């Protein structure tokens, strides 16, 4: 388990939900997928979700599945409606310029030094 803030630093991520603090949020790993049902079927609570999907339904999926933070790859940024819903549900949204492969790789390395 590592601090979400350490991971966000490693991927040069930007917190799109600045109303939500990264302080004290621990993560156990990640699930990498762009199919919502697969995320709901296989992601574990405490894992971040790395994706390029950025429409409103991802917030519901994260909330139902117990995902604390969504990491957007390749500089994707959600719009205001999605950010507002995320803050309401307490889901942290992070945008990084890195591609999915590197986002997953960097987290794997942090978890398995």
């Amino acid at each position, binding site marked *: 388990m590592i601090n979400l803030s350490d991971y966000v630093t490693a991927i040069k991520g930007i917190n799109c939900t600045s109303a939500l603090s990264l302080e004290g949020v621990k993560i156990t790993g990640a699930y990498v997928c762009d*199919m919502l049902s697969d995320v709901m079927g296989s992601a574990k609570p405490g894992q971040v979700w790395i994706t390029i999907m950025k429409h409103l339904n991802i917030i519901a999926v994260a909330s139902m599945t117990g995902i604390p933070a969504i990491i957007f790859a390749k500089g994707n940024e959600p719009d205001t409606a999605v950010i507002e819903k995320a803050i309401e549900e307490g889901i942290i949204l992070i945008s990084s310029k890195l591609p999915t492969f590197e986002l997953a790789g960097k987290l794997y390395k942090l978890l398995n030094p």
Partner: protein
Amino acid sequence: MQDFVAAKFEMAEYWHINSGLEERVKEFLAKKIEPDVVLQIDIPEKDFNIAGRGSSELKNLLKRLGVDSDILRRIAVASYEAEINVAAHSIGGKMISNVYDDLIYMQFIDNGPGISDIEQAMIPGYSTADDLVREFGFGAGLGLPNIKKNSDALHIESALGSPTLVEIIIFFLK
């Protein structure tokens, strides 16, 4: 000939009950007790911003009632998948959540057009979702399998040209 027509419109049924819970489920359905709380919400066709509201409302209610977080997660995933199914595959319908002190009994009733082959719809990866649904990241063919995986009991009744009924029971205690 008449028999053939009758058979064509006969509703197909699917049951899945977690092993060991058959008696408990049968007893609950036979008793027909009044629920403590009933939540009802309409699910419009293809509106993926509205679909999910029923599950979200239900999740918040059960959280306040102190339902265990693992159980809550199973209920949330099953109900969200079922709600999305109604929005994605039917011309609209409704979600009725019956809350009891020891279980949740959810009913999803749509206005058709029905499932032609329920057994096929249960196969992981099989999907009839259109391009719009897939654009939203749904349509992986995992909706019904996810519901089955997270439910203690799942009952589906449907036929082509008919409404579909999906019923889910999840107990609050294992």
